[in-house]
């Protein structure tokens, strides 16, 4: 059974992060589990955590009056879920729902946020990593917007 610290240290998101920070992050981490169909967070709720998905599938959704729940994107194991804990006003903008039974490591965002303010080096490391994820998600979203399979010019 791998320790939480080992799992975090081995994940690409935390690559090249100093050992002391890995240790600090582990102190804010815990294993969580969501049954299929359970919401992980809801739009508008306060964002105090983020998740490293270890198994399962999560749908990022938005609810609209006429079309119901629309899945914008799905995330699989290994993905990082949630960055609103790091960016004011620290509220979730979308729903996240487990499509299958999902195991994840939850990280205490409120606690880490405080530590980032105290130690800017740590803050920079987090922002660097999230900037990279956001860039990837933005590029994918742009491609989705292009509607490239559509016939019309």
């Amino acid at each position, binding site marked *: 059974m791998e320790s939480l610290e080992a799992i975090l240290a081995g994940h690409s998101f935390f690559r090249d992060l100093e050992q002391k920070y890995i240790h600090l992050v582990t102190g804010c981490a815990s294993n969580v589990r969501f049954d299929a169909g359970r919401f992980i967070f809801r739009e508008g709720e306060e964002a105090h955590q983020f998740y490293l998905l270890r198994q399962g599938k999560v*749908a990022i959704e938005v609810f609209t009056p006429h079309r119901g*729940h629309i899945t914008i994107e*799905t995330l699989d*194991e290994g993905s990082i879920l949630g960055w609103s804990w790091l960016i004011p006003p620290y509220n979730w903008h979308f729903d996240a729902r487990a499509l299958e039974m999902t195991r994840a490591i939850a990280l205490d965002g409120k606690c880490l946020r405080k530590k980032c303010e105290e130690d800017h080096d740590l803050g920079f490391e987090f922002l660097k990593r999230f900037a990279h994820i956001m860039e990837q998600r933005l590029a*994918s979203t742009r*491609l989705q917007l292009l509607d*490239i*399979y559509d*016939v019309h010019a």
Partner: protein
Amino acid sequence: MTYTHERGLETADLVLSPMIPQQFVIQRVRRETEDTFTMELEPETTSASFSFKPGQFNMVYVFGVGEIPISISGDSSEPRSLVHTTRAVGTVTKVMDKLKKGDCVGIRGPYGVPWPMDAARGKDIVIVAGGIGIAPLRPCIYAILRNRENYGKVVLLYGTRTPSDILFRDELERWRARFDLEVYVSVDRAMSGWKGSVGVVTTLIPKSPFDPHNALAMICGPEVMIRFTAMELIKRGVETNQIYVSMERNMKCGIGLCGHCQFSHYFVCKDGPVFRYTDIKENLVKWEI
């Protein structure tokens, strides 16, 4: 005194012109999605057979209407069967869409450079299909499955606009059930009830189970999707010269004489439609080339 071509016109009939189609009879028409259909054809002459390589296309003729290039989407080991999957989006395809069993179409082909099945031996294969791009890749998958021991890990990544645009659903589910083939499908837009992946097909690449250092990739789909897919594969570590793409251009003859399909100095009908990514990557990003 004026020179006219009237005499000349009949001279053309005299020789067996590569522009004259052979007749094929429709055995079956299958509706795949709202605008996409598959025709299963057989040569009119009972003794005749048709052989092709995965990735090649035919010029398909509808009596009196016109002729268009369509990739062959069937099994290259079936000598009497010729399968074409196409969308009904233009004059010719809209008429083709109304043809039934027993009707005939004209076929000229097969033409073009096929998928590199020989170069793929011994490697992990990554097949990335976008939309109807899965049609020219299906013969490739059939060929791999027929000689499965010649290849390493085989991964099919398939992206469509919505779940209702997914082609060959039954086959995809059968393939996915195999232990020696990984199939991942993702849609750009989900509808309620879809529990599969949502996101562009490129998002499936980073975690696909293949060894990038011993992989050969084959991509077919809209040009934008080809560019981003290639980029993502290279990011993952696939060597640029192991990526192959299938291109599409306007074709009037299919045999390198009408000039329509030129893409830089390449004729897509005879230098393609399958190209090595390294050979065309500069031109892929040039506008209106």
